[in-house]
């Protein structure tokens, strides 16, 4: 049955998804939560993005409810008021190890929200994954990717523990894009000594990819634009 989770996804209780703006953190977070919930895991998602006003995991609130995923986020009114607020409920989530929690973090310096919780997180079994998109010009070269990763580590006061190659061009992504990202992820892993966790691929491309050293996580696109079906 398809609902057996890959080992990389069940290795930690708390997984924070960080990275450069627009890398696809929210899409990864939503897909992980859906996969975990469908496999029967007690799952939670926290929308801790204080940077982006649009295209937030909170837009999937209804689906999370249907799948029994606990969703932790500050009030919509605070988001719409441009208030960079964090939900008080996050404190309880970070201490409740009966959940597998995915923390959806804002881009770049948005990772600073984790600094407030770094001691709590560090005391638990946690992972911090850096989402890499080689088609984003600001992380398209090794030098820029390293700079982005280290900057985010400085902001949050936690180490990045894994790299996810999430290279995409929205609905124009090709296998070539994913392979390009795999190459950059390898180089990034080599110079930072941080392992590559997986490569994401739209479900339609996942089977056609050549063998990669790390697992491929087939994803569905949930974060759609208003005209996309």
């Amino acid at each position, binding site marked *: 049955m398809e609902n057996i989770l890959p080992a990389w996804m069940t290795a930690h209780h708390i997984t924070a998804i960080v990275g450069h703006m627009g890398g696809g953190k929210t899409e990864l977070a939503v897909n992980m939560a859906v996969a975990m919930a469908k496999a029967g895991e007690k799952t939670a998602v926290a929308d801790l993005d204080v940077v982006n*006003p649009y295209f937030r995991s909170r837009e999937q609130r209804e689906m999370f409810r249907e799948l029994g995923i606990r969703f932790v986020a500050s009030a919509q009114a605070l988001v719409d008021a441009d208030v960079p607020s964090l939900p008080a409920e996050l404190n309880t989530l970070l201490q409740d190890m009966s959940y597998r929690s995915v923390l959806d973090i804002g881009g770049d310096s948005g990772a600073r929200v984790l600094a407030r919780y770094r001691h709590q997180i560090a005391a638990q079994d946690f992972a911090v994954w850096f989402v890499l998109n080689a*088609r*984003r010009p600001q992380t398209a070269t090794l030098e820029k990717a390293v700079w982005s990763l280290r900057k985010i580590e400085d902001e949050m006061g936690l180490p990045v523990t894994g790299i996810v190659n999430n290279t995409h061009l*929205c609905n124009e992504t090709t296998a070539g894009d994913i392979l390009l990202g795999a190459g950059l992820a390898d180089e990034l892993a080599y110079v930072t000594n941080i392992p590559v966790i997986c490569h994401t691929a739209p479900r339609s491309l996942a089977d056609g990819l050549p063998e990669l050293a790390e697992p491929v996580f087939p994803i569905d696109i949930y974060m759609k634009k*208003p*005209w996309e079906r």
Partner: protein
Amino acid sequence: MDTTVEKELWKGNEAVAEAAIRAGCKCFFGYPITPQNEIPEYMSAHLPEAGGVFIQSESELAAINMVYGAAASGVRAMTSSSSPGISLKQEGISAMCSGELPGVVVNMMRGGPGLGTIQPSQCDYFQATRGGGNGDYRTIVLAPCDIQEAVDMTQEAFDLADIYRMPVMILGDGMIGQMMEPIVWHDIPKRELPSKDWCASGRKGRDHSNFITSLRIDAPDSEEFNRHLEAKYKTIAEKETRWVEKDTDGCEIIIAAYGTPSRIALSAAEELEAKGIKVGLFRPQTVWPFPSERLAELAAQPSVKAILVVEMSLGQMVEDVQLAVKGAKPVRFYGRVGGMVPSVEEIAEEAEKILQEVR
């Protein structure tokens, strides 16, 4: 397609900022407001690298007046904001029209009125196309519907501003600023630019000093200047009006929309066509000058039963459509407001309902 051209993924606001730098923008003055913050943020990081100057001004009012000053010295200058911030710039835009100063103003519209909401909107169409400031003036208003077009239009905006010596506005909605899309960087056609021999950048051996002002006390002089502006705006309407149409030939209903709603209308048209309804799409790329003549021609086709205008407003561009169509065909409106975005289903249902009524 040229497969050697690499596509890159850009966020709308960042892409507009990068496009401005590539167009030779040397001065950016702005103040933060959602949903356009990535423009000043990107400029603050990258404009100095390109030899330019970024200043976070103390207010939007200060920013537009800094654009006035920088433009007067002959450099390419720009400001950006979102709806309430653009309101504050109106006085400066009017003054730039009067001083005949080129500059680019970006508005990533959010819901209004007043401070409104940070969610996307198109409620500043009147302000952009009618002139929110005082006086008989116009600004060229370019309305991109995707990030590639926002990039191309930003580069063109600087040329248009220089050619006609006036502020040019990029009128996007919050969605255009916030979303991510693949783009390619390509050279836009170079236009012949007039020399800036009018600018106040030092006398340089001329026999006169250049003087830039928006004050014309003498009424006959002032009228003559206004007639000069009138002639300029007429030339722009003749030469720079732009639009895109799709499947308009022999269509039954025309859906007219700009920006984000035009893309939702495209998806709605595909649904309607699957049901056998012939939908034509009409998308103004310049909302001033408005492509009235072409829309009137299309509406006059015997096949056309009605025009549906879709906006994220209570109905603003619909007035330009009515002026163009002059009652020849029924013009209907569908809008969502306050930061809400119309859905594909809503537009398709509305079009079907209208056709049932008018057939």
